[in-house]
């Protein structure tokens, strides 16, 4: 455990000793803030238009919070490759991987350390957006459960992306290659269920199941379904497992 924390701490420090940590957090906060602003404006207009009608109350959870979380999940597709692309590639390129692999730490500890480091940075990104939720709480009456499940969903989905990103980073020495492939894979995982609407029922359910972002939908509605929890945890575990295999294979190849 100490080894995992030591590596996680080192990873986190590395994010902030280079501009990457600041860029990622700033970029995410900026875009999230922008979406928040736009949606609040739209929400207000709708409230004004419908407010006069009988029973015309607009649901803040449905009309504001849910689309906000869905948009945030799209921003992640662009931001998280920046977080994971250097994790292994940089160590391989600069030779520092030799330090890690010849120190008395196991591969799994290294991988979990790196995962934890990236997750902490990601959690910090999400924490900043809680300012906006605070604003909603103080001026409106959103359901806290929806916000809570939404954040949990974002965290888990991000965890899946990070574990896939780690895997891709472990495959190459080149950060740019690692970042580009990660981005492409994330996009694919996002759009993979788009043909589902006109596919047969079997294909449809398979495609929907594969899409990491599709599983997020229920979280934004305030639904905590074990099906999705199991899915996210298995994707994370599988991604980390494949990373361990990849690091081990790399050893044999030399």
């Amino acid at each position, binding site marked *: 455990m100490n*080894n995992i924390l030591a590596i996680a701490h080192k990873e986190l420090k590395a994010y902030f000793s*280079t501009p990457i940590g600041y860029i990622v957090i700033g970029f995410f906060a900026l875009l999230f803030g922008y979406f928040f602003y736009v949606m609040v404006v739209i929400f207000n207009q709708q409230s004004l238009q419908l407010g006069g009608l009988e029973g015309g109350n607009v649901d803040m959870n449905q009309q504001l919070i849910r689309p906000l979380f869905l948009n945030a999940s799209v921003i992640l597709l662009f931001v998280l490759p920046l977080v994971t692309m250097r994790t292994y590639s940089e160590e391989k390129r600069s030779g520092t991987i*030799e330090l890690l692999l010849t120190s008395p730490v196991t591969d799994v500890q290294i991988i979990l350390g790196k995962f934890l480091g990236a997750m902490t940075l990601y959690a910090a990104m999400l924490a900043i957006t809680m300012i906006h939720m605070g604003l909603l709480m103080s001026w409106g009456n959103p359901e806290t459960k929806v916000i809570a499940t939404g954040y949990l969903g974002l965290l888990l989905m991000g965890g899946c992306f990070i574990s896939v990103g780690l895997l891709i980073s472990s495959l190459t020495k080149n950060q740019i290659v690692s970042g580009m492939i990660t981005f492409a894979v994330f996009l694919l995982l996002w759009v993979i269920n788009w043909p589902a609407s006109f596919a047969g029922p079997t294909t449809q359910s398979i495609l929907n199941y594969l899409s990491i972002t599709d599983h997020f939908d229920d979280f934004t509605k305030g639904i905590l379904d074990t099906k999705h929890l199991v899915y996210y945890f298995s994707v994370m575990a599988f991604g980390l497992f494949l990373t361990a295999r990849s690091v081990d294979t790399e050893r044999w190849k030399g």
Partner: protein
Amino acid sequence: MIEVQHLTKRYGPVTAVDDISFTVERGEILGFLGPNGAGKTTTMRVLTGYMPPTEGKAIVAGYDVFEQPIEAKRRTGYLPETPPLYPDMTVREYLSFVSKIKGIPRGERKARVDGMMRKTHISDMANRHCGKLSKGYRQRVGLAQALMHNPDVLILDEPTAGLDPKQIIETRQLIKSLAGDHTIILSTHILPEVSQTCQRVVIINRGKVVAVDTPDNLTSRLRGSETMYLQVDATGADAAAVLQHVAGVTRVAIADTKGSAVGYEVDSEAGQDVRRELAAAVVGRGWGLLEMRPMRMSLEEIFLHVTTEDVTASAAAEEVAQ
């Protein structure tokens, strides 16, 4: 302390290390000598647990590096060819990270890091970023990293590469001072380094061990015969003919001429000391014996001898002819 048994490492079709075996005793400094691409780094990487061997095994400090890697790594310090530094960390941050992953208890870390910086003379660079250090300092930070957990076994891949002469001498002294407490393997392709720092040498070429011995033994063993250099002022007389008739002499050749003084290379049968007879022969005729010294095969010659197949073959042929 270190036992390498029939170690083979293949990268696809390329065999980098081909069935090598050797042992290193506790407290010994072993020089690992070979041309670039001979398989030195690969062997060291296997010994440090960085990569598994294709065949054979390596036992370091009593632990098989493949079966019990963590135990073996706890007792091994490794300085790779390029010191594995994180450019964005300061020297102190880097070493304190290293102290954590090498399992130094929390309370001892600070003292250990400070001690290592003093030992390797990098204390004044403690707050400098690793990426901004000169080559010499990087190497020393790398060494501090390898020594951090006070390992039984120290594996150094070209520890003096890229250093200036003063730093090379300092590094060698540091390495020598570490012997005894630590068992050291160091690789190099600089030959004087081996004769100055190592007690034993393994010469490796194209993945195979071609010689294992002390530097002194190597020099004498590879000489088929003893060679003396004599400078004689025979005032025009034919000294070569006289020298040739001394018992035990097999060959006399003129090496150089300076005025009336002529330098000769005199070969004699191995193990036979002909110095007294040679001196008597020269002085007895009233000639001037200006110089007489044994000519030893330098490590460079041995190295070329054992790493170049053609030379080895022709040398073998010579021996047969003799």
